[in-house]
């Protein structure tokens, strides 16, 4: 679970003062925090570990690493449920 997954930054936004991004991994898009690689721009590739971008990579590297992770069945964490922001009392689990 220490492996980080490369993806493409498709959108950046602010979430309560944190610099965040939507990052595309193959067909899945998930949120990632950009605070640890603050200079990242839309269109660039980052390595993401548990929802945090930890390093920037080039496209070829991203592609290769993604393939390697797929071969190792290490992409399942991307399928974990998405938690949306909810009003207090509206959380129906």
């Amino acid at each position: 679970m220490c492996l980080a997954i490369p993806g493409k930054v498709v959108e950046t936004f602010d979430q309560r003062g944190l610099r965040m991004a939507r990052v595309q991994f193959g067909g899945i898009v998930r949120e990632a925090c950009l605070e640890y690689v603050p200079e990242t721009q839309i269109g660039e590739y980052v390595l993401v570990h548990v929802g945090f971008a930890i390093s920037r990579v080039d496209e070829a590297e991203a592609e290769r690493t993604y393939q390697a992770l797929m071969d190792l069945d290490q992409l399942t964490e991307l399928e974990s449920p998405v938690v949306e922001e909810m009003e207090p009392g509206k959380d129906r689990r």
Partner: protein
Amino acid sequence: MKYLDEYRDGTVARKVVDEIHRVQTKPWVIMEVCGGQTHSIVKNGIDHLLPEGVELVHGPGCPVCVTPLEMIDKAHAIARRPEVIFCSFGDMLRVPGSDGDLFTIKSEGGDVRVVYSPLDCLKIARANPERKVVFFAIGFETTAPANAMLVSRARAEGVPNLSILVSHVLVPPSIAAILQSPQNRVQGFLGPGHVCAIMGYREYEPMSARFKVPIVITGFEPLDILQGTLMTIRQLEQGRAEVENEYSRILDREGNLPAQKLVSSVFEIADRKWRGVGIIPKSGYKLRWEYREHDAEKLFNVKEIDTREPDICISGQILRGIKKPHDCPAFGTLCTPQKPLGATMVSAEGACAAYYAYGRHLKAEKEEREAVHAMGGAA
């Protein structure tokens, strides 16, 4: 796609394997530290491509594996409380404690949730102000920045009902513990790539010098592992002991400085117990005193739980490179991923679970059958 084709094409890998065979003249024992590397080695049969004299042993770098049973039992005790929403990464859910796993607790009505990112817990905590949201913060240096950010934001945003149960461990002290053991066999290390993406490799340099051992920071792709192994063997054959970086396309000597800064503002170094190994001094993190209001161990005051691991399990020796899964009489028989007896079988990144997943228990069974047959024939 040029890179991808080159990588898929086995000629580059073949060249590295040939070079390893050419430079190796003496027997060497090399440990890969990270569980992702172990998984990749076993899945791709990399150890079988190496010369007979080069043995790969599998290190302690699987955070799920080394989380002590006492800590898992503590997590379960907290998760069973009616006021608690217990959040965890998916891999911890199937790890059995002394009495069932988190799935069992969920099926019995406990509010147990899988999260992708620690930050998800903040959303859950804000949506449930009357409940106590607890996150099971396990992991190595790679995961610490994410967990540090969660606690830092909880304090900054004033989310009092969010706490974390910390079971954080660090790679360098575990390597030092292996090297200090009188039973040690390991002569060189493939260092953990993604851990060093955060920490850099500067902190491995004093250890390499002190113990005169090569440490090559290595990625987890098959070609990385072969390349890292070649670099390690070259050092060993030439009598060098240095830190080298095979994974320079991802990391440098300094690592990710903003991440290191936040981690050290939230966590401090503490002694930690490693499953199968025991207490290693200064081998993990605990929350700093300023963050005590978000420390689940303090808030829930769970008493120390007595646990007992099966005597037959040799996972402690496997994690230190002294033994291999096949040396265990329970491997693949009494102990399987469905019914794990110890650390190295509880997660897919553990050495025993990886050997099992790729059919190596079948070979063990075959050898055992043959051995029994031979003994029977002789008698």
